[in-house]
């Protein structure tokens, strides 16, 4: 049974249809990729799932519950975490505080978990530094572990590899794989085809708001429509 | 003490509302320009209007010039003042959070008022040039207000034409839509900001010059105009220029009708409630674009 079922979702901005009746279904414990040329509607689809955009048609179900129409915070609290294409850490909060704000339980435990996660991405020494003072890659990591603080069932990653160096990237990918092994579901938007092909089990391809292909990476790579979408004819 | 409202009375206040609405629109267009291009809320807009009114007053009382002919002079003078303000102070808060621009322009605003108090005294001044009214089908059409209305329409129309057709106007609109794109297209954004602030100050001054013929002039006259201009541009959709026209007429009408059916004291309340209702339904105003 699908953890997340996106069913015929449409989103228009004025005259432009950004997402045109897209349906996808995600199973638990798997990694999915979402690819497509610039402007094909990937980030908008993310926003529709997480409640940042109100959808015009269709439905989004998460663990058998309608979540379209909910506020982003309600969606998040049901177990969907995400990162952003442009980093969105809270610059005037410290790295540790960035993690603390999303937690709810007793504070000492939360702090311990936060420091563990920072340790995990090798940022323990910078826990009390303002996030705005960190490097781009470090901020990216903070944003990544901030998602983990909420213990989400489904994680949406918007271009996790962009602007990250090789070593860091490998760590990150290893972490993603581990999350999958813990039974979480991951959907990632990525331009780096190596990452997508190496990590994802199923790939969805969007073009001009339409889903034009879906399948294992190997097959997608050979799909004519996909090649056409990317390179034109 | 209730007065029965007749259709003639409604006609009368509708006319009054439209007359003052055009003036609101003209003054508010300046505020909308600044907000659209720079995201700066200019509290000093009203005091700039006040300075424009004084230009007209002094030209009229010293040289006996026709006050309506002083409108372009007042606009030119305040264009310069606006450019200077932008170059020296305002440019520093263009990218700052709204709090900075609110406070900076508030500081400028009280300073301008105080300077005017000391230079021009707090004496009430007026340009007593034309009074009385034409009677149009039982409805009195105030002469000074009607002429001011025509001028306001003309100036507002010219401003729209300028924005729509000239290179500079297009550059201003481009900058207000996306500064990055404007930069990429080789538009000197700093210069556009200066011109915008100058133009906006000129529009305020034009409003002041026209008001000089209608109401009495004193250093504190501007404050209420800042507030009304806000109402207008938020109603119409901040940063949307035709919205300023719509908002101005709407505010003029609402104020007058509220005063007629309720009482003058509550007209502001009604205007505000309308504003909040509009914003709740359309968070960026009637003609506003998407919120980012």
């Amino acid at each position, binding site marked *: 049974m699908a953890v997340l079922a996106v069913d015929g979702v449409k989103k228009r901005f004025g005259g432009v249809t950004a997402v045109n009746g897209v349906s996808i279904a995600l199973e638990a414990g798997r990694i999915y990729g979402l690819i497509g040329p610039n402007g094909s509607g990937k980030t908008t689809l993310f926003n529709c799932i997480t409640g*940042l955009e109100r959808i015009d048609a269709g439905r989004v179900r998460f663990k058998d519950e309608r979540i379209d129409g909910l506020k982003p915070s309600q969606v998040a609290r049901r177990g969907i975490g995400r990162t952003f294409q442009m980093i969105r850490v*809270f610059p005037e909060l410290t790295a540790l505080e960035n993690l603390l704000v999303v937690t709810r339980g007793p504070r000492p435990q939360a702090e311990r978990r936060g420091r563990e996660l920072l340790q995990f991405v090798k940022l323990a020494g910078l826990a009390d530094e303002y996030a705005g003072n960190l490097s781009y890659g470090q901020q990216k990591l903070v944003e990544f572990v901030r998602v983990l603080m909420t213990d989400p069932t489904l994680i949406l990653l918007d271009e996790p590899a962009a602007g990250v160096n090789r070593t860091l990237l490998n760590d990150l990918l290893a972490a993603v794989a581990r999350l999958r092994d813990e039974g979480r579901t991951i959907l990632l938007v990525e331009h780096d085809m190596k990452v997508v092909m190496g990590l994802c089990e199923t790939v969805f391809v969007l073009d001009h708001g339409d889903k034009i292909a879906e399948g294992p990476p190997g097959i997608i790579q050979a799909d004519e429509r996909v090649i056409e979408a990317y390179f034109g004819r | 003490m209730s007065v029965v409202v007749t259709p003639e009375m409604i006609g009368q206040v509708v006319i009054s509302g439209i007359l003052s609405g055009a003036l609101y629109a003209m003054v508010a267009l300046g505020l909308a320009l600044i907000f659209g291009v720079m995201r700066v809320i200019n509290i000093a807009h009203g005091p700039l209007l006040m300075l424009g009114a004084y230009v007209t007053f002094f030209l009229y009382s010293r040289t006996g010039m026709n006050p309506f002919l002083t409108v372009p002079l007042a606009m030119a003078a305040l264009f310069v003042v606006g450019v200077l303000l932008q170059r020296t102070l305002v440019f520093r808060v263009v990218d700052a959070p709204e709090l900075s621009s609110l406070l900076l322009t508030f500081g400028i605003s*009280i300073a301008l008022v105080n300077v005017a108090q000391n230079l021009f005294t707090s004496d009430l001044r007026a340009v007593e040039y034309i009074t009385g009214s034409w009677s149009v089908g039982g409805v009195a059409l105030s002469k000074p207000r009607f002429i001011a209305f025509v001028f306001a329409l003309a100036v507002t129309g010219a401003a729209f034409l300028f924005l729509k057709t000239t290179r500079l106007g297009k550059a201003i609109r481009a900058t207000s839509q996306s500064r990055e794109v404007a930069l990429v297209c080789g538009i000197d954004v700093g210069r556009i900001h200066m011109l915008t602030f100058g133009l906006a100050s000129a529009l305020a001054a034009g409003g002041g010059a026209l008001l000089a013929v209608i109401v009495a002039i004193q250093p504190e006259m501007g404050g209420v105009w800042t*507030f009304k201009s806000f109402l207008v541009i938020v109603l119409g959709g901040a940063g949307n220029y035709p919205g300023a026209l719509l908002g101005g007429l709407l505010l003029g009408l609402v104020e007058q009708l509220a005063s007629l059916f309720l009482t003058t004291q509550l007209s502001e309340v009604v205007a505000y409630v309308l504003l*909040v209702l509009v914003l709740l339904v359309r968070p960026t105003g009637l003609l506003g674009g998407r919120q980012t």
Partner: protein
Amino acid sequence: MRLSPAVVLPALAVVLAALVLYPFVGTGYGVRAMLQIFMWIALAGSWNLISGLTGYVSFGHVAFFGAGAYTGAILVASAGWSWPVAALAGGIAAALLALFIGYPCLRLKGPYFAIAMLGLNEVLRALVSYFEGLTGGGNGLSLPTLDATRAIYYVMGVLAVAVTAMTYAIITSRFGLRLMTIREDEIAAEAMGIDTFHHKLAAFLLSAVGPGIAGALTARDQGYIEPLSVFPLAITVTMIVMVLFGGKGTVWGPVLGAAALFVIQEIVWARYPYVHPLLFGAIIVAVVLLMPRGVLGLLQLKYRLPRTI
């Protein structure tokens, strides 16, 4: 330059003791001036809670002051309540107003919120003038003569301490951090599961109570209020400038800003009766341009101090 509690707490105790004793040695004006500083600390501190932390600029915060002033004055004048109880009622009334107005207005963003709050203030003034049966309208409301300045001094002092203590408690809590995430990036905060609207609303309510009580106390102390004197934009701007001067989002910024700016204003006022608005305008411009983070904000950045300075 870390401040350890071992230094801070005794110093605070000394200051508090001095302030407690001050009414017995100070002149009438001195007491009233200190009382005003307490009031400004309470106002600036309260504004800091909503605007310093969440970044939502309340450009009409004096509305709560005025609402409290009228609630308190009406309860004293018409219902014969004792002023301390009426002051509490003033705080509650302000909080209710915040709840009522927060629901629509806190959905507005950035400048729209600022303008809506500015409008709220204008509207309250118009309404107070209109319902003259209750408020005396433009006549204002005159309270029976009562010399309670000293008692009000203490109550206002407690209020200032309470607002500052509350700021401390909030800033060091996760609730406070979440409020700051709204300032930093509201969309990200929402996407991280923070219910930004209700956080804003809570902060807004808390930020209304202090001005409400301060308004009621001021009404009792002045003995006379009228719409124009309890709803002026100048009060809002003054509290904002105080917070900016001291450092927004910090605990002691509003305290420092309130005291410093009040003293500067009093001096300028007395010396230059005809041009002090010009000077005040210049101060505002200088603060905005030269130190937008305020004195403590600068120190905080430079020396990496905690927000609790």
